[in-house]
Structure formats: structure tokens, C-alpha cells
């Protein structure tokens, strides 16, 4: 059977519409998922708690120097999102194989690089994201994601034999995640980018440097404050 063209177009529309309507469930007389909300008491409150921690870090994105380091952190949480934070740490930068190769008789070049020795930074942390992971249905890991902006000073040392020191004002943006291990402990994974401006005596120039530090640490919270 052949349809006139206009009718064929109309029925074609019906055919295409039918499955769409069939697929739409009638949301009446049923309790929908949207009717349910989970309003969960804070399992790991931070407000008015102090967090101390120790972190192992690695400045590994420098072609000439790789610096393992240890950082100690202190944070006072003003509320669930905002905290005042102080991080102090130290380490030692080792020459990379690339640097050694350049130093070797083959090339005979010693790049003017600085190694990380220590830093003290203070600033704020802001944790706008709170989420959780379901590991096996029954084990749930809560975590938050924070950004930090800190400022302070970094001490560096020239890798050349003169071992000149440089004291550099530092701005340090960072992002990290805090995985709660319980009421009083958390594991941190953070990436922090220390932006340094340092005066280098050998060439009498101001140099800009980035120490991109990846840290993993364990922190401990002070006791939960009494309810007011």
C-alpha cells in the first residue's frame, strides 16, 4: 500500500513518537528517588579543630634537581571550608642524571641551578568540595578537595661548588584532597606549586623559579570542640 506523501509524513511522525512516549514512565502514585534525600550529619567535622600533619614531598618536575622533602603542616579550621594554614618543611635537591651528564667531560657544562633546602609558608585553605567514595558497598571513604594559597619564603642553594644560598619570597598555590581515616586522622594528597623569585649572586640577576611539589601526608585533628 502506498500512502499519499503528506499522510506518510504524518504517520512517520507517529511511528517515531510512539517509542518515546512508551519509554516515559508515569511518575504518579510512586515514591521517586527524587522524593528522597540523604541529609547526613557531618561525620568528620572540622570547624574549630586544629590539624597537624607530616607530609612527604617530591619536587620532581625540575630537569636538573630532584628534591625529596618533608613538610610539617598546621591548619586551624575556621569553619567546614575555610582554614588558616602554615606549612614548613625542608629537603635536599639532588642533581639529576641529565645534570650529571651535562657536567661530564663530554659536555663540560654546569648549569646554574638551585636546589630546594627549606620553606615556610602561611596562608588560607578553602575546601569547597566534599565528596565520598564507595569502595565495596560497605566501606565508604569521605574526602574533601581544597585549594590553598600561601605565601612565605624559601631557602635554596646553588648546586655549583660555591653553594651560594638564596632566600626567595614565595607564593604557593596548591590543590589537595583530604581523605578521612577516622574522627582524628586524615590522609592528604596535594600538589603545590611554589613560585619563587630569587636573587642569584653569580650573574646578579633576579630569577623566577617554580618548585612543583607533590606531597602525601598524614594529619591528625585535635578533639572535637564541645557543643555551644
Amino acid at each position: 500500500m502506498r500512502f499519499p506523501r503528506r499522510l506518510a509524513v504524518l504517520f512517520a511522525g507517529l511511528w517515531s513518537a510512539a517509542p518515546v512516549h512508551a519509554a516515559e514512565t508515569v511518575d504518579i502514585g510512586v515514591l521517586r528517588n527524587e522524593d528522597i534525600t540523604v541529609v547526613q550529619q557531618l561525620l568528620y567535622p572540622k570547624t574549630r579543630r586544629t590539624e597537624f600533619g607530616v607530609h612527604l614531598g617530591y619536587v620532581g618536575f625540575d630537569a636538573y634537581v630532584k628534591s625529596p622533602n618533608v613538610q610539617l603542616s598546621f591548619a586551624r579550621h575556621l569553619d567546614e571550608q575555610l582554614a588558616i594554614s602554615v606549612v614548613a618543611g625542608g629537603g635536599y635537591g639532588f642533581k639529576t642524571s641529565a645534570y650529571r651528564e651535562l657536567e661530564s667531560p663530554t659536555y663540560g657544562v654546569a648549569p646554574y641551578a638551585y636546589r630546594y633546602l627549606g620553606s615556610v609558608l602561611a596562608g588560607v585553605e578553602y575546601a569547597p568540595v566534599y565528596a565520598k567514595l564507595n569502595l565495596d558497598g560497605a566501606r565508604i571513604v569521605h574526602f574533601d578537595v581544597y585549594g590553598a594559597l600561601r605565601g612565605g619564603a624559601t631557602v635554596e642553594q646553588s648546586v655549583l661548588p660555591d653553594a651560594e644560598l638564596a632566600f626567595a619570597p614565595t607564593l604557593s598555590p596548591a590543590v589537595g584532597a583530604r581523605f578521612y581515616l577516622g574522627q582524628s586522622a586524615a590522609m592528604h594528597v596535594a600538589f603545590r606549586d611554589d613560585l619563587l623569585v630569587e636573587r642569584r649572586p653569580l650573574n646578579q640577576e633576579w630569577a623566577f623559579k617554580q618548585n612543583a611539589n607533590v606531597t602525601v601526608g598524614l594529619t591528625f585533628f585535635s578533639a572535637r570542640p564541645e557543643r555551644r
Partner: protein
Amino acid sequence: MIRKLTLAAALVLAAPAMAADEGGYATYELALRAGQLENAADALVAVLEDPEQAADHGKAWRAIATLLETQGLPYASLVAWSHAIATDAQSTAGDIAKVMDLAASLSDEEILGPVLGSNVGIQGLDAPTRSRMAYVAARHQLRRGNLGTALGILMMVEEGTPVFAHAMALRGVVLANQGRHADAVTPLVTAQAAARQAADFPEADRFDDVVELNIARTYYGAGNWTQAIEWFNRVDRKSEYWAQAQFERAWAHFRNDDMQQALAALHTHDTPFFDGWYWPEADLLRAYALFTLCKFGSATAEINEFVETYTPVSEALGSQLGALDEAAAFADARTFVEGGTPKLPPMMLRDFRHDDRFAEAVAGTDKAKEELAKLAKMTDRPFVRAAREWVTDRRDERVAEEGARVLDRARKARAELSQTLQAAEITRVDMLQMQAEMYERATETGKLDFGDQIGKLRNLRKARKGYRVWPYQGEVWADELGWFTVDARADCPESLAEGKAR
């Protein structure tokens, strides 16, 4: 010389026989003096079996209780002590504390309940012993349903004694059972405070949870739904009573005409974490709450699920109940508690895993079994036969009591399920009619208004400081149990809203 030795031996051998000839309690004393403990015990059994020597029975029970303990037969000794107290309580005053310790060590304080209850007026007891004795007796009376007696006995418990918190909690329970809910709160709160202040309180957290649950139940009984909800929520999430408390909270919301929160509380029990738990009432309550919100589709689904889940349970109960006597029922529950496969539906027996009384009965019967094994190896003589009989009787008595509880619970469940499953069929038909009416109305109005879902979430986030708000997407996470809220629009057809269909 040989003739003299033979004579001496004959005298020694004759001594017990001569003593036995004297008969009665004196025989025991003679044997005891001669250091012949087994003969002494036999003599006491003879006294106890002779009704004509009833005047000596009190001291005979005491004496044999002591002797049996020295023979390494503590359970038989405990039975004898219970008879000694029953026969002549005042003479045992100095032993009461020791006997209660013995009973506790054998997980059978219950044996002392009746005898201590009948002899609460014993003189010469110190405050801790009298209080403990009163607590054991009152608990026994409560289990027997003698509420007035239990309450009266509890008056003897003194503040500051180790059992004070337990006694106050028991007092609250008794008062609540008497329907005196307003009076019950004070002793329960006192019990909680006393336990929290105690320097060393065994199972303090568990006790705290039980008391909180009982306070909630008391408020519920008094019709104070708000307070009941508050106290049900206080039961710790880690507690074995938490799920039960949440279920009862749902009832409180329901009675408070808050169907949304009743559904929210019951949503926890509908999650896979509670598959295999016996909660027919939760399913029905959920169905009823859904029904009152005219969620006929969900209510029908709930009833279908109820029928599907509980029909086999009801059938299994029907087939097993006739085949089990008390001893078999006790053994069946025990098999389940110990991780085996029972004949009764496992969901029926789940509560026995946390039932102190059942656990005590299991431990006590095990100790009785150990002692019976020991008695079986001993030389057959009157006191051994008597001890065997006493321990066997006591073991069988406990097995029968606990088995009867198991059967009673199973019978009640069977009756409730049969009735409810029949009613469910009728309800399903009614529901279908109402559902049709509802669809009709929806077709007429042509619009389904669910409100601003995102806005609702945002408002919740602002309003609930100290809480995290997560959307629910049908996936259940363990840490979210108990934190559900429901905000559902009622889909009631006009006729229902106006009461036409009722």
C-alpha cells in the same frame, strides 16, 4: 599379731556401717568426722529423700551443697543451694553472696530468682548483697509477668550498690509495662546517669543504648511522639539495637501523622543491608504510609514484596512448628546462633543472636553438660545419682523454658503472617481501584507538579548546618542508612481527599 590386725581392720570397716545404723543427719556427721566425704554425701542424700526427716532438710541441703562443691560439682551444688535457700533461707544468709557468685559463674542466676524472691526478708545481709539479691529476684518476677511483685522487690535495692543502675533500669521497664509511662522515665534516666558516673561499669555502651531505647519506648507509650523520636535517634549507630530503634522511630513518626519521615526511617530497612531480617511490620507500615500519601503504585509493590518474602516464611513455620518440641526448638535456635542452618526460618531466629537470656541459657546448659559428663565417670552411688538427676532436671528445665520462648515467638509470627497475608490480597484489590481513580484524575488535569527539586536541595543545604545533603539516586551506601528524608507530594484523588472512598 595377725588376729589383732584383722580386728582393727574390721573396726575401721565397721565404723561407717555402725554410723549408718544410727541413721539420719548424725550419720553424715560421723562420716564427715571420719573424713569420708563420699559416704557423708550419700548419708545426706538419704536424709533428703526421707520425708520423715524434713526437719533436717534445711541443714542437709546446705551441707550437701558445700560437699558437692568440694567434689568439683558446682552445678549440682548450685541446685542444692537453691533448695537450701528455699527450705531455710535465714540459715543461708551468710552464704547468699557466695551462692549468687556461683550462679553467675554457671550462667544460671535465674535458678535463684524464685527462691530469692520468696525470701527477700532475710536478715543480716549487707547492702550490696541484699540489693543484688533483690535485683535477681525482681528480674525473675518480671519474666514471669508479676509486675507488682517485681516493683516491690526493687524497692530494696540501695543507691550506690553495683546493681543500682540495672535495678533502676528494670524499675523503669516494669513501670512502663504497667502502663505508668510518665513514672517510668525518671528511673530510666537515673539508671543512665548512674551507669555513666560509675567508674567501672561492664558493657557501659550497650547498657546506655538499651536504656535510651527504653526511654524512647516509654515516651512512645505515653504518646509523646516528639520525645520518642528524639530518644530513638540517640541509640548509637553501632549498637545492635540501632535498626530496631530506627524501626520504632518510624512508628513514632507514623503516629505523629508524619508519613514522610515514617517512610524515610523505614527506607533504611528496605535496603539490601537488611535483607533476611524479620520485619514484616516494617513492610506493612511502609505500605500503609505510602497508601496514605496515595502512592498506590509503590504501596502495591510493597505489598507484593511482602507477600513474596513472607509467604515462604509462613509456610516454613507451618510445616516446622508441629514437628518441633521445646528441646528441638532450643536446639534449632542454638544451631542458628552458632552459625548453622536451622529448621525454622533464619529470619525468625535473628533476635536470639543478641538475646542475653538465651545466651545465658546456652552457656548454662553447656556447663551442665560438662558436669554431667564428669558425673558419668564417677562411681555410681547415691549422691552421684542424685547430683546427676538434679543437674539433668535443671538443664532440661532451662532448655524447655527457652525452647518454649522460641516456639512462642514462632507461633505468634505464624499467626500474624497468616492473617496479614490473607488481608494483603484484599488490600491489593482495593489499591488497584484507587490507583485507577488516581490515573483518571491525572489524565483530567494533565499535569504533574513535583515542585522545584533542585531548589529543595539547595534550601536543605542552607537550612541544615552541620549536615551534608546528598541527592538519592537509588544506590544505597552504608554510611547513609538512617539519614534519609522524604519530601513527597501526596497523589490523592479528590474522592480520597474528601473521604469518599473511606
